[in-house]
């Protein structure tokens, strides 16, 4: 099954790229200072920063990854949103933004320097810089691979062209350009995926029809089967889900990752900064319908045929006709797959088999849906949305990197007293070499097929303890720099050790765990192992930070004003209409969240 984009599809894509670049060009002349370039001069209204906050996070991991998880695990995947994101977004908006924005820190590591000390900042800055650049590279690799597989486009060309486009608009227009393009990308993704979900649901007979076709009750309930790992496809139980995903991992990401926090820092006022994650929470709650449902549908529908539409099921003959038609010319074979999800194939094109079962290429679930339901015209739009999701991730990583490099690493350690124009120049230079390193990372990822897993792991090791550090830093004035630093190191080490001595059932020691030689415990699934790694890492960091802080001298209260809860004035929201107040927004979001969870119980 290989789609053939027509001129109309290429036109749509071309028009999109023109606008993306155009925005960068127009914004160039507004980039006069480093504050303009890295922080948009702190002048962006809340609705824009809110959508950018969401969109910067909305990389390929969302659109492709959630589709894949939906196909594998069913509606439980919604936990990544409804448990694993929204509460953290509410928390960061209401309680942490006052410190991020109020401290006038220009980056997350800089907050750490103001609150703790230089070495804590350095640890965070360097680990973040490295990870964000590699993450961008892995995104590029995933996109190149997908476009090559799906459309036969040249891998190298896809990588170079996308890197150049992102380079052009972030180089010229800095963070503002990235933010504006992220908002554009948000609308593109929503507008691109609504018809997909609509058509897919119509084809299977709505939610009820989908439930009937899937046939597995555990795939269509989000909480009911969390009593024990063996009852659900994800292999987790409610405690590790709530603590591991819902608390540690999600708060660790949304509250401390500079990529998203940067967008809130660009807001035009404290209230806007606080409202940013809350505004983002609204569409975020509805995204499961756009990205998870198509994945679930992919597993239970059949391929398009030349002979009439296929709502009930395709006669076997017609389906194999399509497959054999396309196989000689290349393209994706669905034989051995499930629904329209193809199997993973080895170099010769034969399906991979593990434990007697065909290994499915779940990452292709959503792209195959696009190809299946979109005629030329809309196909161009869908491909645009797909590429937009990759590119918004790349641009987000790039702007976060160039800020952390310039302010925290370069200005922090290499050249502390240069002029603002010099730092602006450095920011642009960092954009170039950051993307160059990302491109290199994309090729490295191509060599080692485990790289994505490794990156995920490293993120978990580093992010999980980080939230403990911030929590203590912002809400406990007794926390000291030595405590924070030791806590971070200890937490990361604990994560690595935990991963090294445990293994998911059915995996071999290596990237999946057990690399320290001894396997002390076997988890029912990889997810379970991840969640518990996060829990251990966070707890270790929390404990060590407290212990070491109590043994070292804290800074005097005067130095911590505005950085710690007890020493900061509560933000006042008196001048806003009632529906604009952050607290009210938070209550509405929480209510909708509870309703959604209840509906899909």
């Amino acid at each position, binding site marked *: 099954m290989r789609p053939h984009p027509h001129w*109309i599809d290429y*036109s*749509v894509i071309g*028009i*999109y790229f023109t*606008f993306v670049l*155009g*925005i960068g060009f*127009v*914004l160039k002349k*507004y980039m006069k200072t480093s*504050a*303009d370039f890295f922080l*948009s*001069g*702190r*002048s*962006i*209204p809340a609705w*824009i920063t809110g959508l950018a906050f969401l969109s910067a996070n909305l990389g390929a991991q969302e659109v492709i990854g959630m589709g894949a998880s939906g196909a594998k695990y069913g509606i439980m995947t919604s936990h990544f949103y409804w448990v694993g994101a929204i509460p953290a977004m509410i928390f960061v908006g209401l309680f942490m933004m006052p410190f991020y924005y109020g401290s006038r820190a220009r980056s997350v590591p800089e907050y750490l320097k103001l609150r703790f000390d230089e070495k804590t900042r350095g640890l965070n800055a360097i680990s973040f810089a490295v990870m964000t650049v590699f993450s961008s590279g892995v995104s590029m690799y995933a996109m190149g691979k997908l476009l090559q597989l799906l459309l036969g486009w040249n891998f190298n060309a896809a990588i170079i062209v996308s890197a150049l486009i992102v380079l052009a608009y972030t180089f010229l227009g800095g963070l*503002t350009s990235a933010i*504006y393009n992220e*908002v*554009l990308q948000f*609308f593109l993704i929503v*507008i691109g995926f609504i*018809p997909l979900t609509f*058509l897919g649901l*119509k*084809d299977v007979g709505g939610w009820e029809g989908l439930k009937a076709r899937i046939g597995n009750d555990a795939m269509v309930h989000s909480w009911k089967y969390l009593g024990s790992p063996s009852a659900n496809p994800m292999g987790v139980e409610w405690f590790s889900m709530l603590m591991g995903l819902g608390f540690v991992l999600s708060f660790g990401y949304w509250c401390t990752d500079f990529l998203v926090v940067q967008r809130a820092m660009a807001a*035009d*006022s*404290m*209230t*806007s900064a606080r409202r940013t994650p809350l505004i983002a929470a609204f569409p975020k709650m509805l995204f499961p319908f756009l990205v998870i449902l198509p994945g679930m549908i992919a597993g239970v529908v059949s391929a*398009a*045929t*030349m002979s*009439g*539409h296929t*709502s009930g099921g395709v006669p076997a003959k017609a389906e194999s006709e399509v497959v054999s038609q396309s196989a000689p010319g290349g393209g994706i074979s669905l034989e051995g797959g499930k629904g329209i999800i193809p199997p993973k194939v080895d170099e010769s094109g034969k399906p991979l088999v593990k434990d007697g079962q065909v290994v499915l290429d779940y990452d292709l679930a959503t792209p195959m849906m696009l190809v*299946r*339901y*979109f*005629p*030329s*015209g*809309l196909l*161009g*739009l869908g491909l645009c949305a797909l590429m937009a999701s990759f590119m918004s991730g790349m641009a987000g990583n790039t702007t976060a990197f160039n800020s952390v490099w310039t302010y925290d690493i370069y200005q922090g350690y290499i050249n502390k007293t240069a002029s603002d124009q010099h730092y602006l120049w450095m920011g642009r230079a960092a954009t170039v070499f950051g993307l160059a390193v990302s491109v290199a990372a994309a090729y490295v990822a191509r060599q080692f097929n485990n790289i994505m897993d490794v990156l995920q792991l490293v993120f978990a090791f580093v992010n999980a303890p980080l939230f403990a550090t911030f929590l203590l830093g912002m809400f406990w004035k007794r926390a000291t720099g030595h405590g924070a630093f030791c806590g971070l190191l200890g937490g990361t080490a604990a994560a690595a050790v935990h991963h090294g001595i445990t293994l998911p059932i059915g995996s071999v020691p290596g990237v999946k765990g057990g690399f320290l030689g001894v396997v002390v415990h076997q988890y029912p699934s990889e997810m379970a192992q991840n969640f518990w790694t996060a829990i251990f890492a966070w707890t270790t960091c929390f404990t060590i930070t407290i212990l070491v802080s109590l043994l070292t001298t804290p800074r005097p209260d005067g130095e911590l004003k505005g950085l710690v809860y007890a020493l900061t004035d509560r933000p006042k929201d008196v*001048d*806003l209409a009632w529906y604009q107040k952050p607290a009210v927004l938070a209550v509405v979001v929480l209510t909708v969240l509870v309703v959604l969870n209840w509906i899909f119980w």
Partner: protein
Amino acid sequence: MGFDIRLPIGMMFSVFGVLVGAYGAATQDSEMYVRHSLGINVNLWWGLVMLIFGGGMLLLVRRGAVATRASDKTDKTLRSPIVK
């Protein structure tokens, strides 16, 4: 900072709407709709939706430029004259 972001959004989706919608109208009887989108001419319909969305955005831009901006009374140390 800079220009109203609803301008490029409005423009792009209006262009998409016209382009895809016209293509849909021109390919009204194509079998591709039967093969892919359950017999529905999604190009035409969704093109229309995009045009309405894009047009709506442009209207908001027009309204924003005309109306005087009521300033927020919140802390605005580094405010630029951005149209909301």
